[in-house]
Each structure stands twice: as C-alpha cells, then as structure tokens.
C-alpha cells in the first residue's frame, strides 16, 4: 500500500500540512472514516473527479482556505475530508443536489451525479436546471404563436375502415386546433399504386403545387393526439422551418437516443414526420426503392443539406410497431439498399449475408449508387436502430 500513488501523495501532503494541526486532524478523521475504502476505488474516484468539468481544483482551493493546490491532492482532500455538502466547483451545487436527490444518501454527491444522476437527467445545480429548461422550451418553441402558413398532411398506409376513420377524425381535429395554419389533408391509402415513399412523393408534389410549405407524412393507421400538430408547428417555427421533425411514437416509443436539450436525433421516424417542402426541393424526393427506412435515408440527406433532424416529445402520434415486423424480408432488402446508397460496403455485405441465410434474393442494384450522399452522415454501427439506443 505504501508504494501506491495515493499513499505517496498522502505522505507528501501530511509533511506539508504538518504546520496546520487542525487541518491534519480533520484529514486523519476523514481517512479514518474511509478506512474500509479500497485504495484502488479511491484511485478510480480521484481519476473520475479530475476528469470531470465539475471538479475545479483551483476554484476549490480558493473557496476553501488552506486546501492543497495540486489538483490531485485537492481531489483527495475533497473525497476524504470535506463534508458532503461542499461544492467541488462553481458548476456543482452540492447542497441543492443533495436536497433534490435523497437517494444520494451518505455518498459523495458529485460522484453520484457523474455515475448516476446525469444519466437520469438530473441537474448539477439550479442554474443548470434552469438553463436546461430554457434550452428545451426554446427548441420546442414553447410559447411561440402557431405560424400562419399552408400545411399538408399526407395520409399513407393501409388501414381498415375503422382505423382510417379514427385517423381522419384525429387529423381534422388537429387541423382545427392548428389555426391560423391552413391545413389540408391528402390521402393515398394502399392499395393505391406505389409504396409508401412513392405515395408520399406524389402527395408532396400535390402539396407543393397548392402552395404548402410544410408537409406531414403520416401513417393512416395511427392517431394524432389533439395537440400533436400544434406541437410540431411550434417546434418547426422555433427552428425557422429548417428541421425534419418527428412526432413521438406513442405509446411504444422508438428507443433511439436523442439530445435531451435540443432534441436532435440521428434520424426521424416516418410515422408522423414534418418535412419542410423546401428541403424536398433542395435534395429531391424520397427514394422510392426503399420500402422501409426511407425516413432514415431522408434524415441523413437532410442533415447533409444542413437541416436539423429532431424529435418532438410533446407531439404524440399513436402508432403500433411490433419489432418483428421491422425485420421481415422487405426490411432487410431496404437495409441492404440503404447501406449501398451510403457507401457502407461492410454493412451491405453483412446484411446481404443475412438475406442469403434467410433464403432470400439480393436486391438488384445498379453498378454505382447515385452520387451526393456523404457516408459520414450515415450510422451503420447500431444495427437496424441506425442510431445509438437509450435502452
């Protein structure tokens, strides 16, 4: 033990602190309390503290007199000596954090925040909580008036009569609540000619001709929550209508991750998706060969064209996505094409092998994918999630 870094630091510290008997007593008492702490654990704690932006050794030394100035010694002192409610830096309010989070118990509040709290979206200080709240409200356009513009809702899918009736009732209700936006509902339910992206392309052209600037691609088997379109329009206004915005699939939300402050996400789900028609003018329509994952492709292209891609959690769209349905032959064929379009040969080969294992035939592709897609925009590192997952 006497050869460990911590022990050597401790000895050096002791010799330098020899002229401060009171501090020394406190330090000894702290170490005595921590006598069961394994040294390797202490090393890990120190490393974690030093790597954290919330531990500011200089600030700490200035704030609490007679504290050691070396960062490592200050970290040791913070862990072993200080009361739990001491702030380790200007951005972490230990007393507030302890009051907000009784589950910290007797543990160190900053270590709790680093290991548990931040992953559970807890704030390190009231100021940070306020900043986060403001950032969210700003990103969502909370309090903004609903923009006065023309919007088309494109209803695509195959739904039996009752479900389609529910969809239409919810869409009409939403559009009346979304005034002064002028909304029209366009329908192309299968077995109308064409697959989902082809039908949306047709409806988007129709919408553009009638002067709409925004289009909501919607699955006709879903239900709009009454305030869904209002929420989408406010968020679009907050983003100056330069964002692809997905409503939240409810009640079984997609597990892909998104930024919890500005709601940026890797790709936007196509079940209920607000698309600025200017984006379609810029990049062209949806890829009609992609029966599935056309929304993933559109999202990556949108990002490449400097549009943002966002989730809108307050906009709920009731929909049903059993996972097994995602992984049928058509989904594999679409994923194969997606990998080819984005120049990800390894992913394409893997998906191709999976298609062959299932006894399927590889989709026919031309010699080269169309130019213009930047492979760096695509994410094939997370399987069919196409983005990191929250769970």
């Amino acid at each position, binding site marked *: 033990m006497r050869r460990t870094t911590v022990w050597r630091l401790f000895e050096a510290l002791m010799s330098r602190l020899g002229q401060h008997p009171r501090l020394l007593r406190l330090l000894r008492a702290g170490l005595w309390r921590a006598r069961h702490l394994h040294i390797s654990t202490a090393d890990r704690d120190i490393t974690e503290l030093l790597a954290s932006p919330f531990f500011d050794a200089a600030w700490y030394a200035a704030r609490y007199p007679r504290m050691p100035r070396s960062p490592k010694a200050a970290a040791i002192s913070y862990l072993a000596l200080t009361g739990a409610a001491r702030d380790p830096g200007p951005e972490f309010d230990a007393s507030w954090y302890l009051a907000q989070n009784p589950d910290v118990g007797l543990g160190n509040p900053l270590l709790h925040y680093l290991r548990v709290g931040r992953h559970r979206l*807890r704030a390190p200080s009231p100021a940070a909580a306020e900043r986060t*709240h403001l950032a969210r409200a700003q990103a969502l356009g909370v309090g903004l008036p609903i923009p006065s513009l023309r919007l088309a809702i494109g209803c695509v899918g195959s739904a039996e009569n009752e479900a389609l009736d529910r969809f239409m009732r919810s869409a009409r209700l939403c559009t009346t609540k979304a005034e002064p936006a002028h909304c029209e509902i366009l329908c192309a339910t299968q077995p109308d000619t064409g697959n989902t992206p082809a039908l949306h392309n047709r409806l988007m052209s129709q919408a553009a001709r009638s002067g709409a600037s925004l289009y909501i691609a919607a699955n006709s088997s879903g239900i709009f929550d009454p305030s869904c379109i209002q929420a989408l329009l406010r968020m679009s206004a907050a983003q100056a209508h330069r964002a692809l915005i997905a409503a939240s699939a*409810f*009640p079984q939300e997609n597990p892909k991750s998104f930024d919890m402050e500005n709601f940026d996400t890797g790709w936007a789900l196509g079940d209920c998706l607000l698309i600025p028609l200017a984006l379609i003018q810029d990049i062209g329509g949806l890829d009609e060969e992609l029966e599935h994952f056309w929304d993933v492709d559109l999202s990556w292209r949108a990002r490449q064209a400097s549009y943002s891609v966002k989730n809108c959690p307050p906009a709920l769209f009731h929909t049903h996505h059993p996972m097994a349905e995602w992984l049928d032959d058509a989904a594999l064929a679409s994923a194969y094409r997606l990998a080819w379009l984005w120049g990800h040969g390894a992913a394409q080969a893997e998906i191709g092998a999976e298609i062959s294992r299932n006894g399927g035939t590889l989709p026919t592709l031309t010699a080269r994918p169309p130019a213009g897609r930047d492979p760096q925009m695509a994410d094939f590192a997370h*399987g069919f999630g196409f983005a990191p997952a*929250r769970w």
Partner: protein
Amino acid sequence: MKIPGLVEVILRFHDPAWLDELCRAVLCLIGQTHRPLRVLLVTQRFSADALKAVEARLEPYRHIAPDVELDVIAYNRAEGLPDARAALINVGIAAAHGQYLSLLDYDDTLYPNAHALLVGELRASGRAVAYAGIALKSVALEPPLELPLAFACAARAPGDGLMDMFRSSFTPLHGMMLDRTCISADDLKADETLQVMEDYEWQLRLGARYLVSHARIDEIIGDYYYKSDGSNTVPLASNMSAARQRLWDHHQARMERLRLSLVVEPAVQRALGLREPQPGLNIRRLLDGVAQGKITLHPPAYLARRVVPDTNAIGY
C-alpha cells in the same frame, strides 16, 4: 348480465394537476385494437371545476373514437382514506357491466394490442385471470413542461407465474385482465382499508381462488413509469422517507397475514402442479412447503402453453 366481449377499463385518476398524463392514458386506450371498449374514469374527490376541466380535456378523444364509451365517475365520499385507491376500483366495478375488466392508472400506458392479447388468452385458456408483461420505464419529468423524457427502460420485473406472484408483487395491475363471468362479485371487491398494496391484495386473493394464466407474461403489453419527481406510490430511492417506509412495512406485514389466511383452492393447487391437493393449504404453507421440498410441483400445464415472443434483437 355481463355484455359478452366488452372490455371495461377502470382508469383511476387522483389529481387534476396531472391532466396531461391522463390524456396520454386515454389516448393509449382509444388506440386499443380490441372493441367493444368502455373506459370508466374514476376521479378522486374532484371539485366541480376540476371535473369540468377533465370533461373538457376528454371531449376531443370522444370525438376521435366515438365507438369507445368514455364515462367519468366522480368519487366524492368524504369518509375513508385520503388516497382512496381501493375505493376507486370498487366504484368502477359497481358501474361495470362487461365480460372483461382491466385497470389502468392515469400515469401508465398500454400498447395497442394489450386488450386483444389478454382477451385472446382468457378465451384460449378458459381461466378467470390473465397476465402479460409490463416494461418498467424510467422518465424524468421536467416541470413546468412536464415532458416525460424516458432515459431507461428495463424488461418486466422478474417473476414467471403464480408462485412468484404469491411471493411478491411483480406485475402492475394494468398487465392483468379478468373475466368477470368466472369471478364472484364479492371476490372482486378491493379492500378499502389498505392505503397501499390494494392491487397486490386483490391479485393475491384472486390468485388463491381462481385459475390464473401467466402464459403471455413474456409479452410486453405496456409500460409502468418510474417518475423522477417521486410521485410513484411504490417506494423508490428517490421518494423514500421514514414515514413511507413505516407505511410499507405495515402493509407488507398485512400481506403476510393474508398469505397465512388465504387458502389456495384445490383447482388452483392442481393447476400449480400439486397432484394431490391439500385441503386448507394456505399460501404461506404452500410457499414454505415448496421451498423446503415438502411439496412437489409437477410442471404445470401453463408452462407448456407458454408463448415465447420473437425477441429478435435489433442488429445484423
């Protein structure tokens, strides 16, 4: 007279401040694929203004799904416990007249196929009660936006069948559906003296007396939300206090007394795999007997029928 095929859901609503959450619950109900459906929204001692606000928020959902009956029942009895959790169930049951009964709290959700799956299981098994799985979702609620931002979702709580349910509560109430044609009205009454665990008491009592199916327990049909604001009834690290701990300890002791007093019906014993049902066997003796090897359970039939869902992971 119970209307055949009608699913009725008792939707308990305790606090008018949570109207947004209530609307989410109503949305997930009108989106159920099973019909006919009736929602019995039972409010707990709301003022006239609060009730008006509830009705106003429900109106759009009535418009979207006119085929779903959406009735509000105001529970206003001043006497009884402040949190009338069990009384709300009983008021809902008194108003119900359908074959199937299910429960949902305002802050939980069900997936679109939930009722269809449970009704299908009740019909296929002929049992009185059917269970399916409920995922446990952790959400941060961000006042004043009150956005439930989900950051984690675990598989359902561990537990496979009735024996596990006798040991501890592992399935939230909305993972359960009853066929009322198989259950006596007296047995349906929830115990209004319980401040918490009224759902578990109900489950224990029904489980000891009626045949229960856990064949679909691996299929997730909804979410239970662990909320960051500490408003869950169940004790969590984030909402625990000495008083809450005492309350839970007291009710745990009551549940244990129930295990000692509830006799497991012979038909239930047989379904659990006891070849020779024992008269007067209570839940505690059954659990201890199995743990000590004095009672042997032969593989129960429901395990053979167990439906294992396709758990194809996302990935290639």
